């Protein structure tokens, strides 16, 4: 019998995210961002984190504003529907934050190199760009076969990867669906994997469709049951994007004081995700529910 890995979110963050850890978050780009886990890191006052992700939407900005972050390795940090991430800007402009600039493709290759256990991967992007000026992990090389110029991307191997999934069993088997972004690479590349799941289900449910599994259970360190864990980002099969939350955050975070008030309400003012959802209120929650359902055609995995 494999080991049960179920635990509370605060336990998982306490055990696997240390001060100084490198943490991959938001690897679905815009969907399934594990906001619950970022908020718990803020509540636990983690320090000197290195955040890794392609497009973090506002989660990176929130962690930066709370003073948890030393460095960001990302392609884009901001607010997808409004633009700027103000805490990110402030921290960088005040030299409190180191940024290693990636593109989505170089980040993909960096995590894929980590996943594949090689120190680099070649690409044809970023040639001629200034990205190598703000990223020592990018270096132009020459192809040993064709002689053409390529951009080598150095591997990234996060200490921890946190992924919000739809359903998991207590042993770390989990189903993820929708656009998957860099999630597969990030899981494979990371030393520890924390899954936050909308639902905990029996192993038989996951075993009925092993193609829907994101990463093998033996590589998973923790399984956390955290409904609405990705709010305000969308979770396919569960809830839509809460655009208003992104707009509200944009307004609130224009100043450090505004951000702190927002944080007092939505992070420090709620002890866990359950309280956060209570604060959102049932009307808000209901407005995000799926209205149009589309159920996948069955596949038979028998013999």
């Amino acid at each position: 019998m494999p080991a049960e890995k179920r635990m509370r979110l605060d336990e998982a963050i306490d055990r696997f995210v240390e001060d100084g850890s490198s943490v991959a978050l938001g690897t679905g780009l815009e969907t399934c961002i594990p906001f619950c886990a970022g908020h718990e890191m803020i509540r636990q006052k983690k320090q000197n984190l290195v955040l890794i992700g392609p497009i973090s939407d506002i989660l990176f900005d929130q962690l930066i504003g709370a003073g948890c972050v030393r460095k960001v390795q990302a392609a884009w940090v901001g607010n997808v529907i409004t633009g700027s991430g103000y805490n990110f800007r402030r921290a960088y402009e005040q030299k409190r934050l180191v940024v290693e600039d990636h593109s989505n493709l170089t980040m993909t290759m960096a995590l894929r190199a980590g996943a594949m256990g090689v120190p680099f991967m070649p690409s044809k992007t970023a040639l001629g760009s200034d990205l190598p000026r703000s990223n020592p992990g990018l270096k132009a090389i020459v192809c040993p076969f064709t002689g053409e110029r390529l951009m080598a991307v150095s591997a990234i191997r996060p200490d921890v990867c946190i992924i919000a999934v739809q359903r998991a069993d207590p042993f770390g088997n989990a189903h993820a669906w929708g656009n998957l972004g860099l999630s597969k690479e990030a899981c494979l590349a990371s030393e520890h994997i924390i899954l936050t799941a909308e639902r905990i289900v029996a192993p038989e449910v996951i075993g009925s469709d092993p193609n829907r599994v994101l990463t093998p259970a033996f590589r998973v360190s923790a399984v956390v049951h955290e409904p609405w864990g990705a709010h305000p980002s969308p979770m396919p099969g569960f809830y839509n994007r809460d655009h208003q939350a992104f707009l509200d955050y944009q307004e609130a975070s224009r100043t450090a004081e505004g951000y702190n008030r927002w944080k007092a309400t939505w992070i420090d003012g709620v002890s866990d995700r359950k309280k956060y959802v209570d604060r959102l209120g049932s009307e808000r929650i209901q407005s995000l529910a799926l209205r149009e359902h589309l159920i996948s055609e069955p596949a038979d995995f028998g013999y």
Partner: protein
Amino acid sequence: MASYTSQELMVTAAARHVADGEVVFVGMRLPLLGFLLAKGTHAPNAVGIFELGIVRDSAAPAPILTMGDLPNLYRANWLADTGDAMALLQQGRVDLSFIGGAQVDLYGNLNTTCIGDLQLPETRLPGSGGACDLACLAGRHILIMAHQRRRFVPRVDYITSPGYGDGPGWRRRMGLPRGGPSAVITTLGCFSFDPRSRRMRLETIHPGVAPETIRSETGWPIDLPEAPPETTPPTEFELKVLRRFDPQGYWTGRR
């Protein structure tokens, strides 16, 4: 004639660059609308690739603010990995993409990383996202920009997304396999790049804009024809389709 906003004119101008059946790598915000407008009008067979790992050849069944909104996943042709979308791009399977930016120069180099010095910038911007990749690897790409003197500079502070670098031959020397900006659509006009000099040049001026405004809002001495042709405004049909995709005017400035 229908009334329309500046953003609606820009999105319409962008959409018209999409030929039917083309494969378009679709970015955030205005580019997303441009693709939807093209699909809804003259390019019903265009295929959209989204960096989240989405390929779809039909428009989303409901208005979306961003590509990660669930209607954009609904009945997609393919929900896959970002690496799969990037594979199609890097291979040369993408005909066209659109990129927005904060600062551009006369060779179409784009900056979305920092205004001023990289170490001590005046403004730190969000970064590349997929823009650098699109500028390097799409068959051609189109820039969509607010036209202001502080944004249209002789040389960008940081090349996030390569245009023609310092002129003819630069992309080849850098090792870029193809592409380059084919157009710039601004709040004042539509621009292309001279095939020999690779410098930005005016194609059409938006209705009601004075050539002098373009000159004064451009940070280098831009050559303008005596009487530049006007940008064709959006048709009623285009506006109708566009407003179906952006019913609140979130992106097109009617809110």
